[in-house]
């Protein structure tokens, strides 16, 4: 278990992790429990489907929240609010993954809830870059069907065994996977940012909300 400094323990969530570990063995790669808050578990890619089954059958997490994916690559474009005058630091391209770690650029993650226990869990799995696919959950949670279609469209991640992996949102001739970080939003590149003129310094760089009131008083003179 990762370094979760536990001021208190959370039995319900610990049990989730324990059961998962006992069912999946060392295919549970990493986990993080924030007591009283939430729990993250990362499993090996090949255990993805198995995890779903364990969650549903052994842990009675019957309620399907969502299934999604993430691209950990930092965006090469920033927010496109480029000003020739501002010297922005060069954008980093290092991949830093979130809770429960990760090894590759793409991760799928899903969240399910056990209604009687009133506890939810987020499970993650890496998606290997060379073969962008994981096993489908649609047979385990019916609701995953559409979520997987969405992910397929947005990230280009395949789902093995999915019944109908077609476009869900975008028109048929759309090219690219919009939610990948390297997909550019053209409008932001084409239109010049209106903020690129020299700017008067702020009257008050105070960091509390009262600043606004002060400024107002000043400006109203």
């Amino acid at each position: 278990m990762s370094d979760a400094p536990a001021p208190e323990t959370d039995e319900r969530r610990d049990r989730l992790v324990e059961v998962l570990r006992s069912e999946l063995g060392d295919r549970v790669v990493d986990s993080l429990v924030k007591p009283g808050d939430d729990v993250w578990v990362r499993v090996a890619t090949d255990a993805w489907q198995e995890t779903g089954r364990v969650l549903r059958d052994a842990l009675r997490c019957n309620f399907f929240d969502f299934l999604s994916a993430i691209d950990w690559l930092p965006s090469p474009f920033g927010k496109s609010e480029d000003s020739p005058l501002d010297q922005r630091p060069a954008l980093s391209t290092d991949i830093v993954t979130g809770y429960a770690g990760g090894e590759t650029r793409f991760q799928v993650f899903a969240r399910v809830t056990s209604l009687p226990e009133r506890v939810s869990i987020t499970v993650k799995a890496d998606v290997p870059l060379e073969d962008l696919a994981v096993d489908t959950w649609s047979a385990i949670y019916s609701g995953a069907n559409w979520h997987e279609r969405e992910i397929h469209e947005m990230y280009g991640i395949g789902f093995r065994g999915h019944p109908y992996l077609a476009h869900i949102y975008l028109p048929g001739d759309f090219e690219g996977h919009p939610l990948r970080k390297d997909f550019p939003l053209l409008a932001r590149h084409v239109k010049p940012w209106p903020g690129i003129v020299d700017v008067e310094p702020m009257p008050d760089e105070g960091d509390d909300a009262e600043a606004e009131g002060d400024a107002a008083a000043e400006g109203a003179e």
Partner: protein
Amino acid sequence: MTAISDRQKLAYVNAQAADGRVNLEFETEEGMTLNMGPQHPATHGTLRIVAKLDGEQVIHCEPVMGYMHRGYEKLLEVRTYPQVNTLVNRIDWLGSFTNEVPFILASEKLMGVEAPPRAQWIRTILFELGRIANISLFLGDTALHMGGMTAAFYAFRDREFVLNQIEAVTGGRFHPNFDRIGGLKDDFPKGWIADTKAVMARLRDFCDEIEDLVVGNEIFQARTRGIGIIPGDIAQSYGLSGANLRASGVDWDLRRDVPVGLAWDQCDWTVWTHPDGDSFSRYWVRLQEVREATKIVDQLCDGLPSGPIMAKVPRIIKVPEGEAWVATENPLGEMGYYVVSKGDLGPFRVKIRTASFNNISVIPWVTRGVYVPDVISILASLYFILGDIDR
């Protein structure tokens, strides 16, 4: 605006039209394909339902979405936190304020701040007002889809009062952009609470009216009872939430079961469930929900604590690194944001879990073997909002 030549335009339009043929896949030798939408009165705008029929019976029914896909999750990655807040208003456009709350709560969770109690109460009040504004329209609209025109007019009429109250506080009838990390933008104007309580009384009358006009009507019951039954376990497996889940007999309400810090636990209200799981019970549960919401608002208005509405937060908001998930019980069901932050001005990735997307994913399952008119009533009773599906 840039003028494009007609030729370009037509070429573009034709290319797009190619997409209109997806339903060809459904066409077979027998039966026929009925296309409802994208422009179709039954689909709240722009959902498209492709139903393969045998006579009037539905063999397979597939929603085609994306006509309202606006790329939220991508857009949120290039916006700052205040900008995200205003954009997410437009997901479930009927109960806009309720969209902001889980996002703000998730951000607050990452930042480790908590809004002062007065802000929490006001949030809850506005949240419930959003729920009323949303569901009261549903009450009329569903009747409208089954031909009962007058109920829709009543719904619009009484909903206006709620919107007025929302506007008086937030400045927007629809898109309040009122929630801030650490608190709220502003406080109630003078006299607001009294007005609101009057409006709540009026809405309870509206509920009674609907009860007489729609719920008690034998024709309405004949159209909805026993139609589109979704058992509880199916509902869970599809991730149905909100009234759809409760109408299937599952007693689950995030307001009660997963408290997120708002003021629901301060007042006395009931979570209604219905054992049947059919269209009628979905309608009924929602009707009760409006009633409960008016009660909640009344109680909260009475006990509103005094104090500041803003916690101390930096003027320029940067959210520390981390991941957080907060979901609330929105009018349409469970809406949650999974916010991943890298410590920037804006979020790194936001997964928006909307209720309608899951709610309507059950359509292919629930419409097998029903008649075309029932598709309409089932769709109406499942209650979705296109922005909430497509994002």
